[in-house]
Structure formats: structure tokens, C-alpha cells
């Protein structure tokens, strides 16, 4: 089975994958918003999503380590990694203390900050074009880029909020 979804919030995405696994659909691949599932026993797996620490998306060291630690790396999309563990082997949390959770959300925030800056630049260039040219289809692009920029801004803000919450808990 395949499903198309667009997620920017990895926590919501994680919840959805775990919900699907509970219903007997085990996620096994991601590509450009298309999630592939195969049948599994309801609740067989627990899923987690992580962002690699390096910008070229090299997962070899990470994957080896995860397999040595008893979890399975299911799929990768650039720096995003999908990991799962059989529910029968116990609870599964990638990050179990405040410090490492903060490090993860900081990584995610930095990732989206770069995306945000790039989108904001594109938006400004497109806006300049639209003002000079005035064609309505360019304005459509301006609106679209504006929307994407705002979405990224929201994610960065949300990460900052989470980091603040976690720091208060330590």
C-alpha cells in the first residue's frame, strides 16, 4: 500500500507511522512524500524519525551503530532517517535524556533555518520579478513561496519552543 502525505513536523509524522503500524501497516520506504507500507501484525513495530548530523546525508556510520544497538534503519531521505524496533523487544525511544533531545531539536531547527533562508531569498527574488513584470502567474509563485517560507518559519519557531521547554525540564 502507498500513501501520499506531506509532513514537516517529524513528531506528527512519527505518530502517524506508529498509528499505521498499530492498524497493521508497517512503513518500509519513503520517497518524495510517498510512504510505502506492507502488512504486519497490528502493533508489531515502533517507529522513530531522526535527522543525521552531517550535511551530505552519509548514514553508513549511523546505520551500523543502530544495527549494533538492536534497531533497524528502514528508510532514508537525504538527512532524514526512519528507524524501527519490534514492539516485542521493548519500548523504543531514540533519545532518552534532556540533553540529547535538545541536541536533536537543535539539529532539526538548524536544518529548517537553512531551508528558511533559502526560501526567503527565493521569495524576495520572485517578489522583485513580480513587481517589475506584474504578470499574474508570477504573483502566484510569489504567494506560493511566501506560504512555504511561512511554513518553515513555523517549524523553526516550534523547534525553538520545544528546546525551551526541554531546557526548563533539566
Amino acid at each position, binding site marked *: 500500500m502507498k500513501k501520499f502525505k506531506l509532513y514537516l513536523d517529524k513528531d506528527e509524522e512519527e505518530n502517524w507511522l506508529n498509528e499505521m503500524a498499530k492498524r497493521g501497516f508497517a512503513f518500509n520506504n519513503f520517497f518524495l512524500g510517498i510512504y510505502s507500507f506492507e502488512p504486519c501484525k497490528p502493533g508489531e513495530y515502533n517507529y*522513530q524519525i*531522526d535527522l543525521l*548530523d552531517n550535511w551530505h546525508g552519509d548514514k553508513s556510520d*549511523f546505520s*551500523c*551503530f*543502530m*544495527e*549494533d*544497538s*538492536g*534497531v533497524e534503519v528502514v528508510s532514508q531521505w537525504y538527512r532524514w532517517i526512519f*528507524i524501527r524496533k519490534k514492539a516485542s523487544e*521493548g*519500548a*523504543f*525511544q*531514540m*533519545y*532518552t*535524556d534532556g*540533553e*540529547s533531545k535538545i*541536541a*536533536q531539536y537543535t539539529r532539526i531547527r538548524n536544518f529548517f533555518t537553512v531551508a528558511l533562508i533559502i526560501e526567503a531569498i527565493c521569495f524576495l527574488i520572485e517578489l522583485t520579478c513580480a513587481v517589475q513584470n506584474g504578470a499574474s502567474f508570477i504573483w502566484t509563485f510569489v504567494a506560493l513561496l511566501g506560504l512555504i517560507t511561512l511554513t518553515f518559519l513555523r517549524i523553526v519557531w516550534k523547534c525553538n519552543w520545544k528546546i525551551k521547554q526541554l531546557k526548563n525540564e533539566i
Partner: protein
Amino acid sequence: MDKNSPLTEALFYILLAVRKPNYGYGIIQDVLEMTKGRLSLGPGTLYGAINSMVSKGWITLYSEDKESRKKKEYLISDTGRQVFKEEVKRLEELVSNSKQME
């Protein structure tokens, strides 16, 4: 004493678990055993902690099994032992002062 102290629980127990060569799953299991199931290290937390301790020189890569899978084993270094000792000294001070409460 420097910024290394206090150690987080995760770092403290990982250092203990690599007093002999140990790898990912082994470390998680040993820590579970030592704490009677209380402290369960997430693999992500462990991965980050190990990488940061390797770069600080507290632990070293002991062996890499190149045959079937790369199972990496880690071992505490002299610097790591020093850091651990300092931490224990601090903890002993805490415990000895705590007696005043009795």
C-alpha cells in the same frame, strides 16, 4: 575541576560500561543491568554520547569487525578514567555531606 562535571547519568554509565571493550547493544544491556532496569539508554542518545566522548578522547574505538558487519567496540581511555574518577570524588562528597541530614 572543570566543565566536565557533573557528568550526565548517560555519560557516567556509558563510561562504566566501556571499562571493558563494549559495543552499542552491549552498553545498553549492561546499563540496564547495573541500574536494575531503571536507566534505558535510547540508541540516539548513546550514539551522540559516544561520538562526543570519542572526540573528547574519553573513549577510543577498540575494534572494528570488518568481516560480516562492522560491529564497533569502544574502550575507556586514561583521560576517560580520570574524568570518571573526578566525578566519583564529587559524588562521594555529595553522599558524605548528605549524612548530615540524618
